């Protein structure tokens, strides 16, 4: 009986955890972007600006939420494998050594959706449940 209760509790925690991960953010792209699924590593390289072009040679235009946004924090940890503060250090090095500039930071989900819709090649992320208004949601493996 105790074993069954333990298994049930573990499953409940796992399910809750998976639900939290699923519901934290949605990666979105401009509707004309041909891809519908991306590898997590590729998304990481996009947001660190190591990869700058889609397979069809369209420039990739990543866009971030502000550093305090919950979706930004989860996206940073899940996809970039580092904290928002660590990402900011990475960009400090790039900016002040002349190696590059970070993606623009926009204040809220609506601004990110608007940016993605108005910039071909754009990619961003918003909190799950935010209105996408025609932006294309991507699956990230």
């Amino acid at each position: 009986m105790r074993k069954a209760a333990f298994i049930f509790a573990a499953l409940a925690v796992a399910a809750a955890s998976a639900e939290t991960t699923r519901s934290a953010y949605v990666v979105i792209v401009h509707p004309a972007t041909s891809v519908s699924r991306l590898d997590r590593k590729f998304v990481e390289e996009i947001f660190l600006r190591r990869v700058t072009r889609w397979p069809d040679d369209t420039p990739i235009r990543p866009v971030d939420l502000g550093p305090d946004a919950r979706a930004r924090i989860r996206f940073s940890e899940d996809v970039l494998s580092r904290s928002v503060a660590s990402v900011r250090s990475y960009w400090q090095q790039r900016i002040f050594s002349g190696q590059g500039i970070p993606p623009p930071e926009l204040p809220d989900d609506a601004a990110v959706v608007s940016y993605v819709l108005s910039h071909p090649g754009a990619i961003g992320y918003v909190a799950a449940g935010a209105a996408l208004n025609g932006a294309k949601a991507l699956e990230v493996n």
Partner: protein
Amino acid sequence: MSLERRGPISKGLPVAAVVLAALATMRPAGAAELELPGLLAPLQIHGFVSQGFLLTSDNNYLANSSRGSFEFSEVGVNITLPATDRLTLGVQVFTRKLGPIGDYRGSLDWYYLDYHWRDWLGFRAGRVKLPFGLYNDSSDIDSARTAVLLPQSIYPAQNRDFLLAQTGAEIYGYKTVGAAGALDYRFYAGTIFLDVTNRPTSPITVVDLDVPYVAGGRVLWLPFDGLRIGGSLQFLRLDTDLLTTGTASQVAVRIPATLWVASAEYTLRDFLFAAEYSRWLVSTQSSNTSVFPESSSTSERAYALASYRVNSWLQVGSYYSRLVPNVDQRVYPAGIQHDFALTLRFEVNRYWLIKAEGHYMRGTAGLSSSLNANLPLSALEPDWALLAIKTTAYF
């Protein structure tokens, strides 16, 4: 051993301190963006202001630190314009004061045009920061690291003018190699323009100083998330004409040097670990060996560091750094320096930080005779400590 102040603090609170205070009280804001007409992307403007303080228990290090020195200031402003999706222009104006180095006058620290043809091949021309080791090209960016002073064995602050940037061209790229991860590479060639500055107390007068070439590259392998492993190699030659006290004719001196460093860095969430090992091979060729003898030496430099972000406003870091200026003369105290450092970094807000760092030093090899009354390094206090405090505002 105590960190005892022995006299009045150096006079002349730098302008940087005033600017810093003004910046720190500003309402937090992101990097400035200036909208340009047409299809041009916004102009990005970033900047930083740093003011530090150095205090040593014995010996002067980097500045007149034994009595406490505020001669530890940096100010930089840069502008980046993504002119097209492949072409970027950038420029940074920088000024600093570190003991006898720098005079608060702004200079073009770097400037470039960057044509990013493919992710695996880009081209930069202008005055470009040298990729040497993990952190050389970002060594003056206080906000990008935990420590006040990077390990001085490999990133000596007083050599910034020699080692930070070259004027010439560079090719660079980033290439994924399937399951093996990715390669990040940069190769460059050019020269370094140096100002001749003679110290009144020096027995040698530098008449002319020229770097006919500097060339090299860095390759980093990123096998999986967080890990960077690689190496850097640099060749350069310094040509100079000297006058020594008591002689009328100039001596031409050529100093070819080969520098290499092996690097490894691992970032895991809020932890960062790094270690580097380097050797610098420097020889001296002289037109008059009786006045300026020829020599050849190999220095050994290494460090290991770790840092951890405790929470959103506190980071701690520590490193051990070791300098041996001549591997054939590892004699304590003048032929070696061990540096044990511990740092606390506080983020006051997103645009302002304060750091405090303590160093325990064994050996005097990293000291400068000219900052210590021209005493030989063997005559200086072999066990000493350094307290470094620095605050930086940036946007």
